[in-house]
């Protein structure tokens, strides 16, 4: 692990450090936040560096730093839960479809194609406005949308692996499909899936932020970064930087995760090239 860190270019190291920083903020944010999440504690739109409010206050006079910390936990935590669910379900279904082949594969793939033909945001908006925006609905909807993408990738990787002779050898031995998926396919698909995990995490994170910005994601007064951009959007008209702070966090986290993922993909490609 230490050697791996040594090999990273400086930009990847920077990205990794930022990811760790955000992760710590998400884990411990609410404990270190100076004020409660939704309490009005000062004047409206105090500038950055005001006495007692390191990052100023928002449109209702709530402490920006506290809301950013609470928002980190909610935005990152939700994105993580969604990505874990979508990967578990998507990868298992993708593997099994590839191994089973034939009409099972065809049917599953076409169903997924139908859902993938809708833009993710439109589909999410449709479901959330019909079902109403509650946390379980939000999580399941986004996990499903993400899951279709994961299915596609997992299936494609598994189809390639499935024709290799070690899988054929397992089949000749008489192994079941579940065993083949778990023991023969998964370990070989893992590097690719892990890299995709980072990318998909960013997408679901951005999607939550976008939905919150549109008012269909996390509901006020709960803090989340996308909602905070929306709440404070008008501040820009007065030359105040309030909405840029959550927007900056969204951008920074997305870029940092991508930097780390890029490096991992590079490593995986190098390893597979050298066989």
């Amino acid at each position: 692990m230490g050697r791996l860190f040594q090999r990273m270019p400086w930009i990847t190291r920077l990205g990794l450090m930022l990811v760790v920083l955000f992760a710590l903020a998400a884990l411990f944010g609410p404990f270190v936040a100076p004020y409660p999440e939704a309490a009005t504690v000062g004047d409206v739109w105090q500038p950055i560096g005001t006495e007692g409010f390191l990052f100023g206050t928002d449109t209702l006079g709530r402490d920006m730093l506290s809301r950013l910390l609470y928002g980190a936990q909610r935005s990152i935590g939700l994105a993580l839960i969604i990505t874990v669910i979508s990967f578990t379900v998507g990868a298992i279904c993708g593997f099994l479809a590839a191994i089973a082949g034939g009409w099972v594969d065809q049917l599953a793939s076409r169903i997924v194609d139908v859902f993938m033909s809708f833009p993710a945001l439109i589909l999410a908006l449709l479901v959330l406005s019909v079902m109403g925006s509650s946390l379980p609905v939000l999580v399941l909807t986004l996990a499903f949308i993400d899951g279709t993408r994961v299915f596609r990738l997992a299936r494609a990787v598994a189809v390639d692996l499935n024709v290799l002779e070690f899988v054929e050898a397992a089949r000749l031995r008489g192994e079941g499909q579940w065993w083949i998926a778990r023991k023969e396919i998964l370990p070989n698909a893992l590097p690719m899936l892990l890299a995709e995990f980072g990318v998909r995490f960013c997408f679901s994170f951005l999607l939550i932020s976008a939905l919150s910005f549109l008012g269909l994601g996390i509901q006020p007064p709960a803090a989340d970064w996308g909602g905070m951009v929306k709440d404070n959007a008008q501040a820009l008209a007065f030359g105040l930087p309030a909405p840029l702070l959550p927007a900056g966090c969204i951008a920074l986290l997305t870029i940092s995760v991508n930097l780390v993922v890029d490096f991992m993909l590079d490593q995986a490609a190098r390893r597979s090239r050298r066989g």
Partner: protein
Amino acid sequence: MLLEIKDLRIDGSDLDGKTVEIVKGVSLSVDRGQVLGLIGESGAGKSTIGLAALGYVRPGCRFTGGSVRLDGQDVVNAPLDLLLQIRGRKVAYVAQSAAASFNPAHRLIDQICEVHQRHGLGPRADAEKRTVELFRKLGLPAPENFGQRYPHQVSGGQLQRAMTVMALIAKPDLVVFDEPTTALDVTTQIEVLAAMRAAIREEGAAALYVTHDLAVVAQVADKILVLRHGNAVELGDTRQVLEAPREEYTRALVSVRKSESNERGAHAKAPVLEVQSIDAAYGQQKVLFDVSLLVEHAATVAVVGESGSGKSTLARVITGLLPPSKGRIRFQGEDLSPALAGRTKEHRRRLQLIYQMPDVAVNPRHTVLEIIGRPLTFYAGLRGADVRRKVEELLARIELPAHFADRFPGELSGGQKQRVCIARALAAEPELIICDEVTSALDPLVADEILKLLLKLQDEQGVSYLFITHDLATVKAIAHEVVVMQRGRVVDSGRKEEVMAPPFHDYTGKLLRSVPEMRTDWLDEVLAGRV
């Protein structure tokens, strides 16, 4: 002196980024019109030296010492624009895989003439004229129109020759051939070899011919340089190296090719496998026609034929991967279900398969313990310490140390991986092992060791082999019975001594005559015999 390499040293990096020396101070020289064969096993550095003649090293490698002079010009330190002028014009390269070297989207003639025009050697019409002339020299069909085809519309052997045309179009002084016939069938190989040799001679070009096959190099080279682990082992005239090798390693290489044949007693028990008039098809395309064969207890039956003869399909049918459309398969007196799904665990255990490419036959993410241990758990229900004990026993039997159990396939050589595959098959305690070209992806010395191991295991355990191969030297070494296949049919079969001795069946004779022999004038004799 056309090419002069002095004390050449090239470094590369291994998987962990550690620097390793690939070429450790090799010197050689090639005169105009001379062909020098570079020979050695994989990892000997022969391709690296071949590429160095073009002033090129693979990504991750670098020149660390010595000099490469082409016609007096230093190509190691030459600037890129000078190298671009030299490459193709003064020195050309023919790669092992022509299929990977042509752009599938363009016609052959366009890709070949491009070289001519890039170097500003005259109008396109001249280039086309010369291309057609070279097509003719290399014996390609309908030379006037051959160039109009796309790469996928010609056979592998033809594409390899087209690549030679591309190399020769600008009349280079030196051509580097990098295993140009390795990927071809024996019968195709002869034609390509003959065409290349004639073209080199007529064009008066010099050549570096890189290969691992001594018999091939014997046909084309004037001199041979034997390489091992980046060092020059022996340099001499072709005849001297083949007939009176000075070094121990060269003697080993030569003797493998002349490997003794395997003479063993007859057998008494009931046949292990009976294949009775099998037909099989992929979709609409029928590939096997009325194939029958018999494998006796503790015997080895070799199935030989060119690629496309249906021998691998036969293996798929026997293992149940491709159910036959007609005929039946009997295993130790019992009927085998045609489809894999219908076979019992016991039948699956008794019939094992070893693949051609050990690299993809084992899961790269499993340790050797898991790979060999799985059949033990799956068939015999062994667990925990019992599995490890048995795996170590099997490792000893395939002559690998016990601590290899904890290694991953990536940490093993090709030969060691193939040994692991053999151990995995043995773990099931089978009656019959189907060996599908098990030695063709290995270096000759390693292949020889694998064959010896298989023979030893047959002696110890009385297992039968169905040996699928296109290599007749292998057949001579290990088979008791031979089945010759051509276009999906069995054309000749019987005891090895009968099939492989005169009078030959037409096709068997052709196959036999196509195996390069280690005499310098073998190719001439074969070509003379064909006319």
